[in-house]
């Protein structure tokens, strides 16, 4: 194999033609309030963990929605389930349940050998 000295870069795009959005559909069946999210960021603003790590629940939500699961399980593990996000959400999204459910789904994906 010839040594090229470089590799073809992989695109860093959310490709909605290829992304698996069925997991988000399963999530909203279990937690219907998740559909109401308008990405205001109140949750990530109050989050205790985000003050000391780069964890952002809002970011996790939107990436999960668009089927981008790479590194997601590791990120969601950082949540302490303190519940402050639940209290401040203006839309009434049940954020704690969303996180717990996402964790369960990501574990399912790992068991199904979906590439994370």
């Amino acid at each position, binding site marked *: 194999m010839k040594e090229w000295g470089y590799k073809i870069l992989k695109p860093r795009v*959310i490709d909605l033609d290829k992304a698996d959005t069925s997991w988000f559909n399963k999530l909203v069946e279990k937690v*219907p309030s998740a559909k*109401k999210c308008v*990405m205001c960021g109140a949750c990530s603003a109050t989050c205790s963990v985000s003050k000391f790590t780069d964890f952002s629940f809002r970011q996790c939500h939107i990436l999960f929605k668009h089927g981008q699961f790479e590194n997601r399980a590791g990120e969601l593990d950082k949540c302490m389930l303190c519940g402050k996000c639940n209290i401040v959400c203006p839309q009434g999204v049940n954020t704690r349940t969303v996180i717990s459910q996402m964790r369960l789904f990501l574990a399912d994906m790992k068991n199904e050998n979906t590439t994370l």
Partner: protein
Amino acid sequence: MSEKKIIIIGGGPAGLEAAYHLAQQNYKVTLLEKELETGGHIRMDVKLFPDFEDASKVRKQLSDKMNHPSIDLKTGICVNSLFQEGDKWCVKNDNNTFYGDAVLLTTGFETFDASRKEELGYGIYDNVITSVEFEAMLKTGKILTSDEKVPQRIAFLNCVGSRDEKVGNHYCSRVCCINGVKLAVCFKELVPNAEVYCFYIDMRMTGQQYEELYRTSQEKYGVNFIRGRISEAASTFNKRIQLKSEDTLAGLPLRITVDMLVLMVGMEPSKSTTLLAGQNDIKGAYGFAASLGINRNDNQTLKEGLFLAGTCKRPLSFRETIADAGAAAIQIMDFLKKAK
């Protein structure tokens, strides 16, 4: 019956509503409309936001009120000249001349010509249409792509021709956000399993029930909202439209292929508005007609006896236009009572 006569130029919602109020107070009204029927843009609507009221019913209600003994309705008259002659106002087109003691300009708006945004492919690719064309399809009850198929995935792009320096329109057209949500919901009711994406910069849900409709569209209908403008739309091999955007909230570029792209085109002043306002020194920013003040005296102009109502001044919703027409009618009556 007062001897004073008012000429209203423009038979859309503003003109119709103002004509009715003035006639009820026994003033003589001549209503001039350039098309062969009244109604203006509401003729094209199916449902009015935010409560999905039937637009044709509303239109009929407005037009029926024109069967009033004090109202002289003349259609097919496109006014091209407006000026003061002494203390009377003269309104002309090539074949007719009308005189009045006061004139109400309700010449309204036109939608932005989307072909000016080349990169969005309107007028170039088949499945890129405007919100006006989409609503026209809704009227027939069938939304179909150029191949006569029902689209399974459509996208709406907000702020086309508004908030855009490149086309010279810095302002916000006020109603496109809510209109887009309304169209998305209408489409979802027709094709419940379809995927709908709305690409926005902001969601400006300013009116009563607007925010609730936005919430319902997500909660009940599953409409997807992506914060990020579409930079270019290109046609693929099978005439679907490939879109390039950035999901600014995820911080990643986003790519999606849809069956149909609907452009939410903004409101620009109609040609009549710019022409007649220009003839009377009341042409304001972007060619709209300028009133004496935005917060008060919004129906008067710096020319005595020349009044404004509706979207000839700025983008307004239907509800605001009706209210504005009523206010204009009162201002005109006050003026005519004082002038002897």
